[in-house]
Every structure is written in C-alpha cells, then in structure tokens.
C-alpha cells in the first residue's frame, strides 16, 4: 500500500477508523453524557470533510485502480460528509424524543457514509458491490432502529429483503459483465468495451441487471416501491439520510459504472434510460399528489427527483453533452440534497410519538406558530418545484438544458410538465402552513432547526450566484470520460 493508496481512501478510512473509535467511546458516553456521541461523530465527519477537501484534490487512482479519485468523487465525497453532518444534526433530538437514543446509531451512520464515499470513488465492480453493501447494511439496521415499533420493523424488513433482492440482480449482472469483459475493473471494462472485444449481448443483459440494482437504490420506477413504505416506517432522520445519501451513492455508482459501459452501448441503453427517467418522473410526481402523509409525499418526491437525475444521465451517450450530463446530475443532486434534508428537518420537528404529526394536514397553522420553520419549508417546497430564487430552479435549469442539449426535448418537456404537477403537491404544503388555521406542535430543537435554516439559506443565497456551483460541478469530470 503506497501513500497514494492511502490518500485515495483517506476520507472513507478516516470515517471507518473514527467509527471504530466511536464504537468504543460510546460505551463510555452512552450512560453518562450521550450528547457526546453525536458530537464526536460530527467531529469525525468534519475531519473526513476536511480531509476530503484538502488531501485528495488531484485526480489519481489508488489500490491499482480500485479507487478512482477524480473530480467526480471529489465533488461527492464532501457532499456525503456534509449530508452525514446534517443527518446527525437531525438525529440527536429525534432519537431522544422517541426514546431510542443509542450510540450505535452514529457508528452505523459513519459506516454507511464511508460506504458511500467508497462508492463514489469505486474503480472496480467489486468495490461497487462491497461499498453498496457497506452503505446498505447499516441502513437496513437503522431502518429498524426503532425496532419494537412495528412500522420501523416492517420498514427494515422491506428494505432488507428488497434491497438484497436488488443486490442479487446487481451481483448477477456483475457476473455477466465480468463474463463479457473478463475483468471487473471499470477502466479496463471501458477499454475492452470500446475495443469491441466484449460480447455485447452479455454486456447488455449484465447492464440491465445492474441497472435494476441501482434503480432500486436510487428509487427509480419500477424499482421504487419500497421507498414510501420504508421512508414512512423508518425513523425520520434515517429516512432523511437515505433520501439523500443512499440516493446520491446509488447515482454515484450508476454514473461510475455506466460511464464505462454506456458510451459504446448508447444506442441500446439510451432508450432504456429515457423510459426509466420519464416513468420515474411521471409516477413519482403523480402519485405524490395523492399522498396525505408528509413522509410518503417526500418519499414520492424523492422518487420523482430520481427521475430528473436520470434525465441528466440520458444524454450521456453524446460525447459533447457528457460533461454537462454528469455535472448537471451532480448539481441537481446537491440542490436536491439540501432541500430534502431541510424538508425532513422540518418534518422531524413536527413528528411526535408514534408517527403523530406527520400528516400534511398537521402542518396547518405552522406559518403562525413557527414562522421560521414554515418559511424554511416554503423554500424547500419551492426549490423542489424549481421556482426561481431558489437553487432548485438552477438545478432544473441545468438539468433541462442538458437534456435539450442532448436532443431530448420531449424528455425535457415531460420533465417540465411533471414538475408542474409537482407544484400541485408541494404547494399544498405551503397552503396548509399558511392558509389554514391550526395549532401544530413543533418540537423546536437547535440542531434540527439549524439544519433547516442553514439549508434554506443556502438554497436562497446560492440561487443568486449559482455560477460558482456550476463551475464546481463542471469540474467534476469522471476519469475516463
């Protein structure tokens, strides 16, 4: 193992080491000062964030190509770290209120994040597979974290069984790709695939199977059905984390893997991605309209946004659009992450014992009783919708631009029309909060509220100067593309 190897996994390694340390420290703190566990976990993530920003700036390959450090991973790794920090901010008060305050939560969270980081820089299908499991297994557990609660258990079971089912697909797909390309190293696959030596049919079937696996992780229709149930049953901070972290990681892997396979099979795969994206946008947005529970609504919203993200990837086959394709996906992902975490933060503030307070109608009157939260929630909803002066607009702007640049005007129009439909249910939240009377109970907590306010501010402030973020995303080039 060389120093470069170490550098290449430093953020993830930091987290894993820190998690191990935290596991031990937790024995000490859990009884006496449980607040220290999340703080330490946060510190670990902060360390990882710092490391990810300062130590892995240059593109490189570690562990003989297992790890690829490039603009892409450099963009996503800090994103995961930040998501983790927010997830911890969301968790502490919630766990305390629900009486499930256990230090393992944070340890598992850190492990999961490390899995995500590895996923973002995976250079080999085996790393993809292992990272997928490393991020998933803690999430299975975290979903069932409130486990005497039946819905938490149900959520965990559904997530676990379906997740493993999807893993099975992915694994079988991987084996076929291995069979076609003789290797599992992504860079080598690219070389072999573009040289035309690989068997296209095997490769295609393998890709299809892998796509099903990733589709599950990113909650693309028709691999999405677990999402609402799991989000609803799982403890809210976990759902928040999943809606952002797991999705981002899934996309990271999807992009990584398909960036190798896609270009040479663009003709075959593009229509599939097209259909998946369209279907996901339509189903996600349409079904969200019928939701009455805020958690489920956010779940469907997350499905819908997966559709938008997929749309960004559709034109990847076009060499000219490629860099924009990835950049706009990443940009959108960031925007989505901010809004989603914020929205969940407000939801967590609303949630009481036994899922009380999570119906959309429970929000009635929030504008009066908790104006700041309501304002923040409004920003998130507007950002989800893609209304200007929130970053969500620029997300969609870049996204649709990419789709149109790739010549997928129809897809862009579907996206635009579905985002109109989305306004319908996002607005309902605003309507409830401001236009209807009620006395909602809002559990104000410094950390939770900080997450909400920080994300809301970020969404608004950066909407005035999205240029630098665009640049950042554009620089997130993938190795090999």
């Amino acid at each position, binding site marked *: 193992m060389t120093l470069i190897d170490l550098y290449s996994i430093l953020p993830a390694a930091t987290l894993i080491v820190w998690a191990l340390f935290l596991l031990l420290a937790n024995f000490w703190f859990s009884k006496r000062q449980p607040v220290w566990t999340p703080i330490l976990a946060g510190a670990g993530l902060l360390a990882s964030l710092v490391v990810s920003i300062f130590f892995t700036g240059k593109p490189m390959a570690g562990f003989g190509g297992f790890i690829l450090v490039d603009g892409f991973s450099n963009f996503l790794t800090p994103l995961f770290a930040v998501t983790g920090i927010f997830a911890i901010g969301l968790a502490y008060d919630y766990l305390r209120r629900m009486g499930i305050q256990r230090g393992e939560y944070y340890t598992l969270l850190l492990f999961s994040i490390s899995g995500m980081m590895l996923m973002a820089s995976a250079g080999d299908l085996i790393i993809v597979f292992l990272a997928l499991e490393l991020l998933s297994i803690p999430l299975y557990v975290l979903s069932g974290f409130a486990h005497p609660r039946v819905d938490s258990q149900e959520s965990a079971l559904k997530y676990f069984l379906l997740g493993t089912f999807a893993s099975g697909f992915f694994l079988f797909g991987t084996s076929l790709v291995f069979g076609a390309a003789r290797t599992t190293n992504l860079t080598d696959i690219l070389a072999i695939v573009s040289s035309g030596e690989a068997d296209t049919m095997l490769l295609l079937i393998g890709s299809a199977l892998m796509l099903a696996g990733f589709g599950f992780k990113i909650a693309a229709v028709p691999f999405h059905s677990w999402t609402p149930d799991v989000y609803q049953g799982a403890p809210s901070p976990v759902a928040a984390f999943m809606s952002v972290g797991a999705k981002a990681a899934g996309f990271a892997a999807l992009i990584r893997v398909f960036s190798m396979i896609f270009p040479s099979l663009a003709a075959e795969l593009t229509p599939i991605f097209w259909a998946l994206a369209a279907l996901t946008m339509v189903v996600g947005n349409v079904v969200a309209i019928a939701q009455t529970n805020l958690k489920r609504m956010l779940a469907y919203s997350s499905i819908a946004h997966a559709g938008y993200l997929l749309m960004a990837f559709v034109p990847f086959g076009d060499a000219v659009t490629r860099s*924009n394709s990835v950049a706009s996906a990443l940009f959108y992902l960031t925007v989505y992450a901010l809004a989603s975490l914020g929205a969940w933060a407000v939801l967590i503030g609303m949630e009481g014992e036994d899922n009380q307070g999570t119906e959309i109608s429970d929000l009635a009157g929030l504008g009066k009783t908790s104006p700041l939260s309501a304002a923040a929630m409004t920003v998130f909803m*507007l950002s989800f*919708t893609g*209304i*200007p*002066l929130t970053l969500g*607009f620029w997300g*969609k*702007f*870049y996204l*649709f*631009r990419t789709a*149109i*640049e790739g010549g997928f*005007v129809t897809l*862009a*129009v579907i996206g*635009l*029309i579905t*985002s*109109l439909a989305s*306004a*319908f249910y996002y*607005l*309902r939240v*605003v*309507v409830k909060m*401001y*236009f*209807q009377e009620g006395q909602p109970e809002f559990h104000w907590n410094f950390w939770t509220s900080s997450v909400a306010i920080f994300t809301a501010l970020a969404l608004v402030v950066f909407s005035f*100067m*999205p*240029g630098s973020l*665009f*640049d950042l995303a*554009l620089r997130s080039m993938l190795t090999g593309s």
Partner: protein
Amino acid sequence: MNIGLNPLLLVTFFPLVGALVVLLLKPKWKTALRWTALVTSLITFGLSIWMLTRFNDIDPEIQFELNLPWITLGNNQIGFHLGIDGISILMVLLTTFLMPLAILSTWKAVEERIKGFMAFFLLLEVGMLGVFLSLDMVLFYVFWEFTLIPMYFLIGLWGGERRVYAAVKFFLYTMAGSVLMLAGILWIGLQYGSFDLTQLSGSGLIPAAAQLWLFGAFGLAFAIKVPMFPLHSWLPDAHTEAPTAGSVILAGILLKMGAYGFLRFNLPLFPNATVTLAPWMAGLAVIGILYGAAVAYLQKDVKRLVAYSSISHLGFVVLGIFALNLQGLQGAILQMVNHGLSTGALFLIVGMLYERRHTRLLENFGGLWKVVPVLGTLALITTLSSVGLPGLNGFVSEFTILLGAFSSTVIGSPWFAGVATLGVILAAVYLLFMFQKLFLGPVTHEENKKLKDVSAREILILTPILIFAFWIGIYPKPFFMLMAPAVEKLTALVQSAALLAH
C-alpha cells in the same frame, strides 16, 4: 458605465430596500410599516420619473443598458442584462405609478399581518420591474417566475373566501405556461449560444420551422398570463379572491407581463411564426373580446365582472399586437396602460365598496350614487373610461387597435377587427349594467343608506388615475411619441425578417 447610478438598477431594486426595512420593523408597528411601504413605492416612482426625464424618446434603441456577467454555464453566458426602451418604459412607469396607489388602498383594508403584506408587495414590485427590464431570457424567466410567489401569498393570505383555491389555481396556471417557455429559452440558448435578447432579436437566426414551436412554447406562457381565451379561467378566481390591492396589481400590471412578453419575445425572436400565426392569434383575441364581454354580463360578483372585462380588454391588446402595424402595436401598448389604469381604478372602487359593505355581490348594492355622490362620479368616469368613451383613455387605444387590425395585412382580413368592434357595444352592455346595479336605481338596502362618501385618502388614490385617464384620452400624443421609435423599429424588424424568409 457607472453601475451605481444606473437608473434601472435603482428603480428595480429600490423596493427591495423597502422590503428589507419592512422586515426589520416589528409587526405591531402598523403605521410605520404602511408608511415605509408607501414611501418606498413613492420614491421608486420618483426614481422612474427621474429615469423618464433622462430617457431619450427619439431613440429606438435600448437605453440605460446594464450588462453584467452573472452566470456562466458552459458556452452560455447568463447576463444580468437590464435595459429599457420605448415599449418597456411605459410598463415600468405604469408599475411604479400603480404601486403607491395600491399600497395606499390597503390603509384600512389590510389590518392583519401588515408586515408580510407590505414585504410581499414590495417584492412583487421588484419582480414585475425585473420582468419589464430584463434583456436576458433567463433573467427574465427568473423574474417572471418569481412574481408568482408574492402574488401567491397575497392571494392566499389576504384574499377572500376561496383564496386558497384561487391562489393555487393562479400559481399552477401560470406555471403551466412558463414551463414550456423555459424549454424554449434553453433550446435557444443552446442553439445560438446566447440568452441575450439584444443579440437574438431580429437576428433571423432561428429557422422558420423552429420558430413555430418556439412561438408556441413562449406564446403559451404569455397567453396564459394575458390571459387569452381559452386559457383564462385562472383569472376570474384570482381577481375575485385577491385583496383589493392585489387585484389592482394583478389586473394592472401582472397581466401586462403576458402582452409584454409577446412584444419582447415572440415578435422579434420569431417573426415568421408571428406572421404565420397572426390570424390565429387575432382570432383567439377576437373570441376573447366577445367572450369576455358576454361572460362578464350577468355576473353576480362585481369583481368577477371586472375580471371578465379584463379578458375582453386584453383581447384588444393581443389583437393590436398581432396586427403588426404601427397603429395596432402602439394602440396595444397604450391599451395595456389604459387597462391598467381603468381596471385598476375599477378594482379600487370595488374595494372601497367592499370596505364599506363587506360584500361584492351586485344585488346588495343599488342607488349608491345618491348616497355617495363623489364616489359615484368617480366610478362613472372610471366605468366610462373602461367602456372606451372618447375623451377618456380607453377609446384612444381601442380605436387605434381596431384601426390597425382593420388595415393589417398580416391578419389579412378586416373581419377580425370588424367582429372585434362588436366588443365596443358589448363593453357598454356589461359595464353600464354594472354601473346601474351599483349606483343607479333606488337604494334598496337599509345598510346602504348611511354609507360614507369617499375619504380624502380615497380621493387621493383615484384622482391620479383619473387625471391620467383624461390626459391619455385628450392628449395621448406624448405617450405615443414615447413608444413610437421603439415600435417602429420592432415593426420594421418583424416585417423585414418575415419578408426575408419568404
């Protein structure tokens, strides 16, 4: 260029300063909040007047241009590009002129959550001014969509009984139009590497085939906003449920954004499509004129009646625009101003009645001229201005529009204008019906017998509008002069581009 002194920047963002001040004040300081908003809007008006004095009205080009690089995205530069010409300056003046009056009208009407109201109101002004001044398509779109938010809250929080329905409907309809516009904007930006209107207008870059669907994409957004038949159904609800000041701004300015969009985008960018589709647009406009007038008649709610009258009046605007000649276009622009004044004033008067009686149903009024003679007289003048009586503002613009449409070679048939002229009759039918139901006949309701006549504040609100109504009616020349060079340029541009393609 000295950015700090750019009048456009000052005009556009001064209300934002006011909004920030409002946000800093405590909610219970009602008077301070009101005055802050009023003074802000007045200063903005003053600034726009100052801008007008420096405006060169024989120059057809964009003036006070401000083009700051804002966002770079790939090969696309999104500029913070503001500018004004003879077309937009009238819209800007209308906006800054109506705002203080609208704010003044809330003095008694809005008692709850004044802080939010004023903040949203001033934000709305920023958005609207931005729409009229933007020369970058993306910037335009940002402002365009942004105006939805304050208006949505204004309707939803301070509106009438069905405010939520109306607010959501308003939001969704408008957004429905604009999503396709965004697709169009992006397509153009990608295809021609620029979002800059000044570079694209009349450049003839866009091929005729593409122009058609782009015209549709942009046109849908604008047609919904205008609103053109049959995309209007958000308007009656939004108008009816909005608070008075909101209705004034909605009718007075927001609708103009749609018509302005046609002028600023569809005509110069897609001249061939414009020429091709002009008869269709004119046809829809004519249907709108008659349809709005027919539906307005027999409405039970005054605000709904006025709302449908807007559909009719805006139909004239669209007809004028697609006449594509000087008379039509100038008439259309003036009609935009006139409709802002007349309908704005009508909504203000309805609001005044509502403040006194807390009802908008026609059946609850009658014979008020006897009870409130001054208000009755003011209402009469306003109604007549809306009817299009010569000597008042409405006539000048409607006449020129019809004249333009009648002689338009683009529309191709005088039938459109001929049928549209029937609207002149119908306008008298429904507006006099309204006036009669409100002010004429005997006083039938006991509650109406002791109504107070207009206060000094209310006279102060209405008088400026009526002064302009007379001014434009009697001496519209300055207004025409202001817009003439820009319109001439636009007409020439459309015609030459369309000719080039043939």
